[in-house]
Each structure stands twice: as structure tokens, then as C-alpha cells.
């Protein structure tokens, strides 16, 4: 099929940037979206134009590196990652608009590549359980009820891709944070630090410049891992609980 691509080009963090239009021919159904961009880039290189920069690594939907806005939707029209989106989701003659994640906490580095370091700093502020190496008791010392373990797993599926932020009209990272807080909060091991964790992480969230959540639910629709909104509610509840505990 033949397509018209409208892609955001920005040569560096301080460049103003703008949309550029590229026709592309001979795209096959079996290509992944990123392979289609690879083909575009090979063509650009042949013409002596700098290829479009975009992030990807595993290309199997698990590392969370890839991610662009496609026709106004984070990761495009299907609930999956950009690398797992295939061209059979498009029709011959389509125009496809491709933009980077937009959030001030995710500054653009180049073209479609953004800096998601804010996510790491949120985890740094408390997204962990303090367990020094070698000091752990036997794994069976603390059984975990299966429903709790399952809910923790569901939340732990987050791949830190940032689609939730990109999709949220408020630029909030609440789904990402809620997922981590729910994951760790479901485990007995996560209890001692539960109050401090939610306080510290939510303070860092705001300090990074993410917006507050007004429960609009776009994030969960964009999330390739289907993290549900109840993790946000869990986080809110945990924060209130921690304040009641007088921290």
C-alpha cells in the first residue's frame, strides 16, 4: 500500500521543530509500524536526508522503549505498543500523523524521541521495597494469597512506556504511579514502607511537572498493558491513609 506520513521533525532539544510530509510506497501488511519507519529511513538515507529518530529496542512489546502518537492516539489505533502495531491496521492511501509524546516532563530530544527520565526519578523516590541483598528470609516464609498476588502482577505489568502521560489531557502520570504503588502495596513485604512510598512518589510526581489526575480515563484506554483505573484510586486511598497515619 501507499501512504502519506506526516512526521514531527525536530533536530534537537532547543529546535522549534515542525511537521514534515513524506510519501511512502510499497508498504506491506506484515510490516510492523516501526519496520515501516525503517523502510522510510532507508529511503531517506539513500536521498541523503537524515533519518527520522525514534526509540525502540525489544520490538516485542515488553521493554516499553517505543511509543509515538499515531493519528492522535498513543501507540496508534490498537491496544498494543507501537512496535507491535502492524500495518494491516491501515488502508492504502491513508495519511498517518506521527508525533512524539507531549508532556513538559518528557522533553523532546530529537524527532520522535523523548526523555522519560522523570519516570526513573519517581521510582527512585520510593518505588521499591528496601531489601538488602542476602538479608532475605526464605521465599516461603510469607505466603501471599493468590488474589493479592494476581492483583500485584496485574499492576506490575506496566512497561513504563509513558503512553498514559501522552494520552492524559492533564499530562498526569497517575496510572504509571498507581500501578507501582498497587504492585508493591499488595505484598506483605511492601507494607512497612507503604505510607512513605506513596507520599514520596506523589511529591516527586508533582515536582517533575506532571499534571494532577482528574479521573478522565484516557490513560487506561491508551495503556498497552491495560492497567485499570482502580490503581489510581488505590494510590489516592493509600495517600489519604498515610496522612491519617500522621506521617
Amino acid at each position: 500500500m501507499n501512504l502519506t506520513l506526516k512526521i514531527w521533525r525536530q533536530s534537537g532539544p532547543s529546535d522549534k521543530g515542525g511537521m514534515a510530509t513524506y510519501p511512502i510506497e510499497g508498504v506491506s501488511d506484515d510490516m510492523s509500524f516501526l519496520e515501516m519507519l525503517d523502510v522510510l529511513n532507508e529511503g531517506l538515507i539513500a536521498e541523503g536526508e537524515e533519518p527520522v529518530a525514534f526509540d525502540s529496542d525489544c520490538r516485542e512489546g515488553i521493554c516499553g522503549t517505543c511509543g509515538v502518537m499515531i493519528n492522535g492516539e498513543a501507540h496508534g489505533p490498537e491496544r498494543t505498543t507501537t512496535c507491535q502495531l502492524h500495518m494491516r491496521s491501515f488502508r492504502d492511501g491513508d495519511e498517518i500523523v506521527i508525533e512524539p509524546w507531549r508532556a513538559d516532563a518528557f522533553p523532546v530530544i530529537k524527532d520522535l524521541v523523548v526523555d522519560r527520565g522523570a519516570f526513573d526519578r519517581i521510582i527512585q523516590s520510593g518505588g521499591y521495597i528496601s531489601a538488602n541483598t542476602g538479608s532475605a528470609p526464605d521465599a516461603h516464609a510469607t505466603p501471599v494469597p493468590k488474589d493479592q498476588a494476581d492483583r500485584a502482577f496485574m499492576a506490575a505489568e506496566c512497561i513504563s512506556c509513558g503512553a498514559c502521560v501522552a494520552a492524559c489531557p492533564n499530562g498526569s502520570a497517575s496510572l504509571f504511579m498507581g500501578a507501582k504503588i498497587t504492585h508493591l502495596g499488595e505484598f506483605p513485604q511492601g507494607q512497612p514502607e507503604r505510607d512513605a512510598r506513596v507520599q514520596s512518589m506523589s511529591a516527586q510526581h508533582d515536582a517533575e511537572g506532571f499534571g494532577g489526575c482528574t479521573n478522565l480515563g484516557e490513560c487506561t484506554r491508551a495503556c498497552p498493558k491495560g492497567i485499570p483505573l482502580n490503581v489510581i484510586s488505590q494510590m489516592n486511598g493509600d495517600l489519604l491513609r498515610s496522612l491519617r497515619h500522621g506521617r
Partner: protein
Amino acid sequence: MNAPLIEGLYREGEPIADSAAPDVPIDRMWTQRQFDAKLVNPANRRKLDVIIVGTGLAGASAGATLGEAGYNVKSFCYQDSPRRAHSIAAQGGINAAKNYKGDGDSIYRLFYDTTKGGDYRSRESNTYRLAEVSADIIDQCVAQGVPFAREYGGLLDNRSFGGVQVSRTFYARGQTGQQLLIGAYQALERQIGAGTVKMYSRHEMLELIVIDDGAGPRARGIIARDMVTGEIETHLADAVVLASGGYGNVYFLSTNAMGCNVTASWRAHRKGAYFANPCYTQIHPTCIPVSGDHQSKLTLMSESLRNDGRIWVPKRIEDCEKDPREIPTEDRDYYLERLYPAFGNLVPRDIASRQAKNMCDEGRGVGPKVGDFRRGVYLDFRDAIERLGEDAVRNKYGNLFDMYKQITGEDPYQVPMRIYPAVHYTMGGLWVDYDLQSSIPGLFVTGEANFSDHGANRLGASALMQGLADGYFVLPNTIRNYLADGPYEPIDPTHPAVIEAQDSVESRIQMLLGISGERSVDSFHKELGHIMWEYCGMERTEEGLRKAIDLIRSLREEFWRNVRVLGSADTLNQSLEKAGRVADFLELGELMCIDALHRRESCGGHFRAESQTEDGEALRNDDEFLYVGGWEWGGEGESPVLHKETLSYKFIELKQRSYK
């Protein structure tokens, strides 16, 4: 180097020995080593700098543990976040000799299975230690909140994996790697927050700094490129740890992530670190086949599919284009069941892979033609669906079926899946001793980047185990023995060796940008991958390998003459990054072929057509090749030098593998 040139390709040097393992019975060795290793006073730890390149399971766990201990750690990865290291992609599980199922598992049995699985080409002492610390890994991960699968009683669940007879594999649905890595990553972030670890993401190590301070050469730092600003940075330290993963991407198409590379290891190799067994590559039988020239990577489908799916190809070449549902059972060749009646579809990875290739080479492959060749065999669930019902199959494999459908657009409940083998793991890597120290003092290598624990073939669910064993438990104990003699002489950033390293990195970048030839980096990478897959893939022959060496040499020559890298050095430049990696692959590929050529036996992932039994099975040659081949860089344009480390099996009896 005066040793004679062997086969026109390499020379032989002094044999090597692993000098760090204490000479005590194997079950006391690790305790003894931990006791013997010198201690570092907590107050001194702050003064000791350790660089860790890589934040996969091996690197992140080491960074977190050394940070906790109080050393000054600098951690590097090329991704935008340490959590994205390729370990994240591992699906199946992680082994540990916990014996929670009470089915007779033990440290010795895990050691035995791993050694046998490696076709007796691994070092006993290391493999035993791996089994020994495996149980601690699970405890550590659970304490961190890794959400392993649990039973209704609240205890951890296990499954059996990769043809062993006990259930010792811990798993977190199909994303064990992601969950383990997040655990290690969070522990690492905790230390970053505490200030003991400084993280350098989007930084690529491009050179190792080796300095002789009078007591012989030591690894003292690295040169890294900030991939956002292009700045070339010098980082100095008392010790350097490489945890930079495997080099399967030399084949272009593999299950590895796009960025996986050999650069860190290769640069160290060029500075004197021996590269051991480079030709040992694992090819995984159940991957989604290539669909066209545009393909950028291959996707693994869990091996568990072979439990219920039946593998076949049409008996007649004419049938290959037919709709598989219209081919009656009597016209199908269930070749694994035919050739290996005892194991059937569950033969080990190397055998399943090789036979699939044989079928396709006979022209009986299925699926679309790529080039003029069909690469695929059917993995059919028709009988399973009839026997168990569609719902039962969905329960067991639903997510894998969905993934398959997402990628291929075909519904595996209706039409048989198509699978084909793909490069998956590299057992070879930098040579290390029992302390995980390479042949350059002060340079330690962990995880997939070293060669140590899997011999010629890796058993499923054991790479994750090795990465975490190395990072949490082994390295922190062995590196202290080295650091106890530090802090080493401070290095002046203007030391000639530092300047030389900086200059070489910078001039290489300028050179790549300056060639402005005709061909893109990817086109070279694809061509290299093609050569490697054809001649140094599942089956290798003397003739093919010689041809490959010639082809690689001329491709390398063309690369440095005709590659086109656009853009500049001082911004994010993905072509430039790729170009550097491909340049190193072009050197590694040749060494892999030389190694494969010199090892005239079939063992594990290395099948030499000249060394097979009458019925076409791998034939090992313990008399001549019971050694680790450690290759030393011979110098630019010079032949490599082989150092052999003889393997001795004292605690396990050598046997021939058979799956008939």
C-alpha cells in the same frame, strides 16, 4: 607472536588455567572462596570506584548490591532507562534448586542438568556455584516484591522446563524477565536515590581504558559517548564490570533487542581480554518466521507450545503451497515424531532447530517465500483442540496465540502456526576465571557477556539464574578481593593511555561520518547477518566457514569504504550508533567463524556437518576438544591467538547425549 599460523587463520598461545577456584571439593569451593577473599573496611568502600556497564539482570543486581555495600558505583546503559535492558524480554522462567515440590531436586541435580545440557563444555566449578546460590535468588526476589506465580495456598508455583524431570522453574506468567529486572532495577534506583550509584543512561561504552601503573596492566575506566549530546566522556575507576549482554545481533535477525551489541566486550577484547568460545550460539526452534525483507527482528514463542502442538511439514514439495487444512494426515510428515520416537516434539532446542532447517533445505518449508525459499514448519494444534477442546487450549496458550495473531494476522485456532528457528542466546563471551575476572586484571564480566556457565548449549531458564547469581551473590564477593588492594593509584585524566583511548574513539567516529559512501549501515548489517546465518548458523561446514571468512573480510573492507552515516556527532544520531556496533560485529563475525572452524566436533549449539554419527546426530570429540577456546586479539590485521583452558570433569561423568 612467533607461533606458527594454523590453517592460515590463527596461532596458538600458552594454555590458560582458572587460578581463582580453591582446590577443595566442589561443594565447599564457594564457601572457601568467600572466606579467602579479602574484606574491605566499610569506611574504605566509599573511596573505591566501580564502573558497571549494563543494567540487565547481571548489571542492575550488581550495581544495587555494591551500592548497598557502600562502594561508589557508576552504572551505564545505552537505553533511556536501566529498566529496559534486554533481560526484560525473557519469558519462560528462572531455575532454582529449592525443591519446593519435593520431587528430588537438589543443588547437585541442577548442577548435573546444567552441565549435561551444556554438552560438557562448561567449567564444573562455576556451574556448581550457580546451582548453589540459585535458591538465594528466589528469596531475594520475593523480598523485593517480584510477583512470581503462586498457588491458591499462597506459596510459589513451579513448572518444569526444557526437558528436565523436576519442577524447579519459577515464573511470572510469560514475563519472568520483566518482573525480575524490575526488581533489580528498583533496587538499583533505590541506591541511585541514596547517592551510592550514579546512573548514566543513554551512554554507550566505546572503549576500555587499560593502564599499567607499574604492577602490570589493569582496567581503570571506560570512554563513553553521551548519546544525546554526543560528548565523549572519560570515566575512571578502580575496577570495571562488563554486564553488557549477548551478541546474537551479529546475525542481524535474532530474538535480541535492536540495540544488543558486542561493542563493550569487543573493545575489551581488543585491549587484551580473551574472548571464549565465540561460536557457541543458541538457536531457538519456536520463533515466528521471517515475513519479508523488511523484517527487523524475530519474535520468540514460548517453548511450552511444543507440549501440545505437533510439528510437521508436507510430505510432498507440491503440497507446500496448499492450505494446510486441506492436507490430509497421511500426506503430512510429523518428522520429529518420526525421527525421535522417544522424545518426539520435545527434543532439545538444538535438535528441533536443526531438523526444521533440514526440512526447509529439502524444499518442504511452508509459508510465504522470502527470497526464493520458504522458511517455516507447521506447529499444529488441531489435535490438541480436538482432544482438549478450544477453551482448554485457550486457557493454556491464549496469550501466545494472541501474540501470534497480532504479528502474523493469522488465527492459530483455525490454521496451524508457522515457526522457524532463530538466534536466541550466545553462550560464548569474554573469558573469566572463578572470580568472574577476565584476563585483564580489574575487568570483571558477568551475565550473558561472559562465557562461563552454560558450555556449548544453555538449558532453558538458566540465563536469568546466571545473571542474578553473578550480580547479587558472586561478583560482590569476588570483586572485594580485588578492591581490597585499592584504592589504586589515581589516574590523571591526561595520562597518555587515557588520551589515546579518547582519540581513538573520536577518530573512529569522525571516520564513520567522513566516509559518506553509498550504502546504509543496515544494509551491511543485513548482509553480515545473512553470511553468519548461512555459514555459521545451525549447521557449519569447513567449506562454508572458509567462505564466510572471506565474505566477511571483503564486506568489512567495503564497509570502511562505502558506508553512509548521515548527521553529526554532537546530537542523538542513531545511524552513527549502529555504525559503530556493526563495525565491531564485522570483526567478531570473523572470529566466530574461525572458532567454529577450528572446533571440528559437534557439541551443543555447534553442529559441524563433518562430525556426526551415522544417523545424523551430533558427535562430540572429548579427546581433542575438551577445552574452552579463549581467543586473544592478535592486533590490527593480525591473526588471533588461541589459549586453551582444559576442562576436567571430576564430579560428573562425561556422557554422550542421546534423545532417540
